[in-house]
């Protein structure tokens, strides 16, 4: 059997394509996973506070910049990012920026104990059945979402966040609103 001309060309082209694909793959970070929620309206939720002092409804916060941080006490990177969250919370305490913590996949007792230990002053909420986690397309804590005054998700950060990224994300949304 000799290879026909078509087969020769096909083999060469296929191998070239394979090489290019593999070379391109180097640019890819398999841990950087985008989800479908950026640029879309933030999924609505009403969640109870961990300390049992009532509930928070996202819809009530329309017109404000909202930062939603997903966390858990069993998540090591969450403890790493917490000081940055605390500082940013203090900085915007008296402003139209609202910070919300959503606690996932643990008992409320554990979540509340962690919140008190870590000095988290902002509203921390219990997502007992994981519905909010799933509607935001969260992979695992920590994850932080930036929601604009119009209720659109403008930004998302996977993994531990630092102060600069937080402030930049917030200021971008505040600036946007004032220019309107």
């Amino acid at each position, binding site marked *: 059997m000799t290879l026909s001309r078509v087969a020769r060309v096909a083999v060469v082209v296929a191998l070239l394509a394979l090489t290019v694909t593999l070379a391109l793959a180097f640019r890819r970070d398999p841990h950087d996973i985008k989800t479908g929620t950026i640029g879309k309206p933030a999924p609505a939720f009403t969640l109870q506070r961990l300390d049992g002092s009532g509930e928070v409804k996202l819809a009530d916060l329309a017109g404000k910049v909202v930062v939603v941080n997903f966390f858990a006490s069993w998540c090591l990177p969450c403890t790493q990012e917490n000081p940055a969250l605390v500082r940013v919370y203090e900085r915007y305490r008296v402003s139209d920026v609202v910070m919300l913590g959503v606690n996932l996949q643990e008992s409320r007792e554990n979540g509340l104990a962690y919140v008190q230990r870590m000095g988290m002053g902002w509203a921390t909420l219990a997502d007992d059945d*994981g519905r909010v986690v799933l509607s935001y397309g969260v992979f695992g804590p920590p994850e932080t979402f930036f929601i604009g005054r119009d209720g659109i998700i403008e930004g998302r950060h996977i993994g531990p966040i630092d102060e600069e990224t937080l402030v930049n994300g917030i200021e971008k949304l505040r600036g946007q609103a004032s220019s309107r």
Partner: protein
Amino acid sequence: MNGRVLIAIALLALAAVIAFAARPHELTADERIDQITAELRCPVCQGLSVKDSSSDTARQMRDLVAQRVHEGKTNAEIQAEFRAAYGDWILLSPPVTSWSGLIWLVPVAVLGAGLIFATGRLRASAAPNADEPSPSQIAALRERVAREEAAEG
């Protein structure tokens, strides 16, 4: 019994069993939950489906699917809800409707090309195969091999 009759009966039985196995039947709610969760990728696992994973996230996703099934949502509606949050990434099998469904053409194309090539090679030799040995020739061959084997012990 005649060999051909036996073959015919066996083939009929086989066809009946296969037809029975392939019959369309209404899925129960649990079967539908399994079917849907088997297609969803567990976000915190390494390529496992929501059905197979024992992680908290997967359990919550199974609960959500179960609730949606009991609410009467269709499979497509439930899938759409997860796709809205996680993108196409959440589906373990790319949807045929989007361009990523092109991957389904791969096996079809390879099989098609391979079969065309293979049958082409066969047709090239479609000339009657006069060389096929008769039973007596085969018997002669068997005897010769046996003789030679016996000769070496």
